[in-house]
């Protein structure tokens, strides 16, 4: 993924040493990151990592204790970023007792739009969301996916240059999710910078050019998926072997081989065993392993080599420990 195209431009968002504390709890602990113009950046992190606080700081809903936020090169000031920033919260922040069109008109108006421009944007938004034929229906009767699309549309009525998206596809079916991705794609194509906060690893991996991982109020990783994978896991791959033990009894040689290669063994049945490990230099080491297992008198019925997923990278950076806050 080529991100070099962003490097010379003024960043859409630049955050420097941002700190925020709620009582004794540190929410942001010196956060630094950049969102380049036109870029799609995924903001990941376990619960309580500080993502929401960061987004609320960007949306001017929370005042940071320390640090600096610049939007398109200008310091974040009250009222100064209204027209360039769009916010789509995770909750359905729309009025269910208004029609789709009435919602769009209202949110357009509070962003200073009126007259022909408002009419055009409402028309565009209905078309963009695929809800033109439902424009006069109360939102309360919409499906979850339709509500999500209207929620998204209300946040971009004023055509912002930067969009803060918080879990835009939570609770929707795959079809609606694809539609929302298409909608985000079209915004990106128009040059809108997107900061996407999500817990959905597949979504972050598929929709974002770069990822920022937060944990305990700090940025713990920042880069493309390849860079992050390299940092977290390097060149190793997950290797998974299915072994058939004919007699139902594990040969001593096999056990010592698995122990030497630090493989984990799981029994699927008396005759079928699964052995897994993370292996460096797969091309060189895997044949040696298979040879050793073969010599111990058992049959390897299947071999699976997996590239690390973002899920693995994420856990590598943040740990597997629960973050109940």
């Amino acid at each position, binding site marked *: 993924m080529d991100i070099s195209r962003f490097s010379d431009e003024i960043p859409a968002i630049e955050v420097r040493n941002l700190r925020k504390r*709620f009582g004794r709890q540190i929410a942001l602990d010196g956060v630094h990151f950049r969102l380049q113009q036109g870029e799609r950046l995924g903001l990941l992190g376990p619960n309580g990592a500080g993502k929401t606080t960061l987004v*609320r700081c960007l*949306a*001017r*809903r*929370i*005042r940071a204790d320390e640090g600096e936020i610049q939007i398109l090169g200008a310091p974040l000031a009250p*009222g100064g970023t*209204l027209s360039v*920033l769009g*916010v789509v*919260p*995770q*909750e*359905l*922040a*729309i*009025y269910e007792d208004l029609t789709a069109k009435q919602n769009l008109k209202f*949110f357009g108006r*509070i*962003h*200073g739009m009126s007259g022909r421009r408002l009419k055009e944007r409402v028309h565009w938004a209905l078309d963009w969301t695929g809800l033109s034929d439902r424009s006069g229906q109360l939102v309360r009767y919409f499906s979850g996916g339709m509500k999500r699309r209207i929620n998204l549309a*209300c*946040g971009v009525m*004023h055509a912002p240059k930067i969009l803060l998206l918080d879990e835009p596809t939570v609770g929707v079916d795959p079809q609606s999710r694809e539609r929302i991705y298409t909608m985000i794609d079209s915004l990106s194509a128009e040059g809108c910078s997107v900061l996407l906060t999500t817990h959905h690893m597949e979504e972050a991996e598929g929709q974002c050019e770069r990822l920022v991982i937060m944990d305990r109020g700090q940025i713990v990783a920042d880069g493309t998926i390849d860079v992050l994978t390299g940092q977290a896991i390097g060149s190793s791959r997950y290797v998974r072997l299915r072994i058939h033990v004919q007699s139902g009894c594990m040969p001593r040689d096999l056990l010592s081989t698995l122990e030497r290669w630090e493989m984990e063994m799981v029994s699927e049945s008396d005759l079928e065993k699964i052995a897994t490990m993370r292996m460096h230099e797969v091309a060189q080491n895997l044949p040696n392993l298979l040879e050793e297992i073969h010599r111990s008198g058992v049959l390897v019925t299947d071999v699976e080599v997996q590239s690390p997923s973002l899920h693995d990278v994420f856990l590598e950076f943040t740990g597997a420990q629960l973050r109940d806050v």
Partner: protein
Amino acid sequence: MIWNIFALSFRQWINRPWEVVLTFFLPIVFFSIFALIFGRGIRSQPSQSVPVSLIDEVKDLQSQELIQLLKNDPQLRFDTLGEGGMSGEQAKSRIQRGDLTACIVIRPFSHSLNSDREKLFPWSIRILADQSDQLAVGYVESTVRASLTRLAMSKLSPEETGISSTGLGVNQVDPPQAAQGVHQAEEDEVLLAPAAKLTPNPPDQRMNRVSQELLSDLPQVENELDPLKNGSAGKPVVEEQVLGIQVQVQNVLDAGKANPVVSMYAAGIAVMFLLFNATAGSGVLIDERANQTLDRLLGSHLSMDQLLLGKWFYMAFLGTMQVTVMFIWASRVFGVNLVEHLDGFFMMTVATSLAASGFGLFLATLCQSRAQLNGISTVVVLTMSALGGSMVPRYLMNESLQHAGLLTFNAWAIDGYDKIFWRELPVNTLGPQLAVLTLSGVIFLSIARLLAIRWESK
């Protein structure tokens, strides 16, 4: 399974401590309020001295004696203006403004004197009254009647009074004691029906029996004077005789009105519903905060000031519409004279709606959740309505409760509507009510604004 549902519901209830508290707290609060009002709060006589005036158009010895007897009553506060020669029209005007509750007019006979009684008491009595405080008017009327009885008994022989004195020892009764006995009887027995209800009461049973005999031939005064029972429609003047002396009670404010008491109750109900609707409407603010719509709104060109003002004006508009529709109904069905009082009605309705809306926003910004708002608003609105006269007229409450009622919107609003529909006063007399209500609305809106700071930016 049934037990599981029971246990589930119970655990849900226990896990909502606020609801647990309200479950037990609300009944106690309302019981206490109504016990205060109906138990000790409601009085059988006026809670404070009754402002009355006297016009003596006769000025003979007997009328002077009657006046003296009346002035001996500590519960009547005589207005000195009347003694300077106030006319009946001036008295009516002062009653209309609420300065006086009643004016006792002693009028000479216009016809030739026929009987001995008429020669001795060549006058009749007319009580010009404001029946909006029925207890006070009833008290004035019974005091006049008792004083007349005492005067007549001191001037006429038992045979002339027509009362059998056998076994009663009427002649031995000391007149002041007699009057006291009459009043005591009324204090103990009269509730809501103020006039002419004299029942035996120890320790002075003899005097009470005298009073009963004196009044036994009276018309059904009680019902006719009680607009709560019959709406007062078409009965502006009630006439009776005490020992041959004609006593008329003229309801100054009742003339020409189809059913003025209805307007009083319409006002009371209107204010209560305005408060309920305002608190419910303001709850939307809490919903908007909970589903992050507030974040989205404040992330636009909209400021918190604009948001609160918009909601304030909207709820005031809706409240005005609601009350207007209710009064249109009242005018069509119950004959409330809305058309002739449109200006005052709109002033009062807009001011009351603004006050109620401001109060609703104050409660909404004070609370953290819808459930909390619902609980608090129910307690507060019903308490205000009970104290402020939406449920029970304030003149029926004791003095301390009447004063406490002035801390509520209801009392000020009802007073204002009372001026419009009952007293038919011009709109420039609504100044205090309009000022208090509008100012209250602005103050509560300002407090709401301050409370909403915490929602703006942390």
